[in-house]
């Protein structure tokens, strides 16, 4: 694994372990100007992801 891949993997793992408010605070403290998408968008996204995971498993 390259240095760059490791940075991305660590970053993803780190923010995955946070809840929405912790993640937003963390990203803003780094300097990202971020706004979480509306809850409805997040729900659709998570439902779609769920379907994809299910379809892959089948």
């Amino acid at each position: 694994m390259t240095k760059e891949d490791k940075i991305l993997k660590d970053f993803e793992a780190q923010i995955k372990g946070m809840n929405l408010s912790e993640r937003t605070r963390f990203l803003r403290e780094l300097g990202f100007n971020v706004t979480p998408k509306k809850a409805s968008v997040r729900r659709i996204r998570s439902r779609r992801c769920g379907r994809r995971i299910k379809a892959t498993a089948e």
Partner: protein
Amino acid sequence: MDVLLLTGYHGTSAENAKSILKSGKFLLSSGTKEWLGTGIYFYREFEDAYDWARGNPGGGEVLHIIAEVDRDRYLDIDSPGGKLLCGKMLDIIQRDFTYVVKGTAQENQCAVMNYIWSYCKNIDVLSAEFPVEKTKTPLLSDFRRRRREFCLRDNSLIKSIQLIEKGDLK
């Protein structure tokens, strides 16, 4: 350890140069638009630091440094993996975690670099090339002159600091 000796040039005001030479330490540049995040910035070429120093009232000074770093702890943002790093990190934030990212390219790059500085303890140097001037006419290939910068966070990596006297310039 595979040692890499880096030569760099730092353009600053005469007053700051005096203080750096006295203390043997550089202060970290910080802000939301630092291209390589919060750190100590050096140009690889003397001319670029000289141009920067000339912008100071009274002309400014150029300091020459030699830094000793472990090659494994040097990250070139222009490497194939490095070029993709900023974009992929934004993809993770936007696509996987459904955020809207509104910052400018410079602010986003600064945030990515600050993540590396804060959480990747195996990196001592970040380096990249940046265009000298803004885009005028968009072309498929970027023909603008570029200059290479590198950024450190740890003063202890700097093994020598020297003032380049005006008489040294030929």
